[in-house]
């Protein structure tokens, strides 16, 4: 009877998990495609990378306009609350599914010390805003574009659209940025298919199960408690690295 229960539970869990994965996949496929990047180990190039990114923003957005960098930053700071106050944009896009959405958004490892040494506070703040995947990515920029279209003042509307375009171009520039050796600073990683991720998680679970069984067996009468814990920790660790 117990064996039948265990077999039934295992099969049910696999079906549930497959169902959950399908729902997640359906959600993700309904979202705009976001770039997924792997960070290069070369952090020495940050200074030139950051300067070129900043230059592009201001050249693209404010070229021909009589506006200095400080005014531009003030403008961006004023613009940000207006956008972020539309909390539904962020909430609907990210919060309920944040851990899943996060794994598919652009991620940057920022060497904060290097950045702080080379940039002023305002520049640092702008770079963080620009590189922060939670606030600036393709879907968020599209949302800003939509908001900008509602601005009645023609000049102001054009300015906002220019800024958004500049940030988009900057992101593209970051993607294509190369080191002095001609190697890509960021590499685009191949995203695993849904089936591969599912198979990978199942294999992680099996590996964890083997460890759980072995350690459960050699740890004595507390095995029913020790085995699940070992399985979970090993499976989660393997899955985090492999999947």
């Amino acid at each position: 009877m117990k064996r039948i229960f265990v077999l039934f539970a295992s099969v049910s869990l696999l079906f549930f998990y497959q169902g959950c994965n399908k729902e997640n996949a359906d959600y993700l496929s309904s979202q705009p495609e976001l770039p997924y990047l792997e960070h290069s180990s070369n952090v020495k190039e940050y200074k030139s990378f950051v300067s070129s990114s900043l230059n592009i923003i201001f050249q693209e957005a404010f070229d021909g306009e009589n506006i200095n960098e400080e005014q531009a930053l003030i403008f961006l700071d004023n613009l940000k609350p207006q956008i972020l106050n539309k909390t539904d944009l962020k909430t609907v896009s990210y919060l309920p599914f944040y851990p899943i959405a996060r794994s598919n958004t652009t991620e940057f490892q920022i060497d904060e010390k290097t950045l702080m040494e080379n940039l002023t506070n305002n520049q640092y703040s702008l770079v963080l805003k620009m590189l922060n995947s939670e606030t600036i990515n393709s879907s968020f920029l599209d949302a800003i574009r939509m908001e900008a279209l509602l601005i009645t003042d023609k000049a102001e509307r054009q300015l906002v659209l220019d800024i958004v375009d500049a940030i988009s171009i900057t992101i593209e520039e970051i993607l294509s940025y190369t080191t002095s050796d001609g190697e890509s600073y960021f590499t685009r990683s191949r995203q695993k298919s849904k089936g591969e991720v599912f198979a990978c998680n199942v294999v992680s679970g099996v590996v964890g199960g083997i460890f759980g069984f072995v350690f459960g067996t050699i740890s004595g009468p507390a095995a029913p408690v020790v085995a699940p814990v070992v399985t979970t920790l090993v499976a989660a660790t393997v899955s985090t690295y492999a999947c």
Partner: protein
Amino acid sequence: MKKQSQFIRFIPYVLLLVSTILLYVNSHSAINKLLFFVSIGLVVGILLSIKDTGSKMILKDKKYRIYVFLFVLSSISAIGSMMFTLFEISNVLNIIILAVSATFLLLVVIRYQRLRH
């Protein structure tokens, strides 16, 4: 003592039921991945409880019980910490807690092997 050993055997069944329900409810979160692993672990735990490993008399040993308790406590902290950093283990704190957990697991195994002989 009999009650205690029955209680330990009973835990995986209850947890399996709860985690299965949670897995079904939390379909849109990283927690479903974790619960999947927890559930597999519980199935393993139930299989081991059927197999009946070791003498229940060992549960009388105070040191053994303390090590098991500390191992479970540190492991739950490790899982919680991993969830807090959105299912990542690269965090230094996570690695430290995992190391502590592994140490207690080793102590449990060593104590059991010593008591058995």
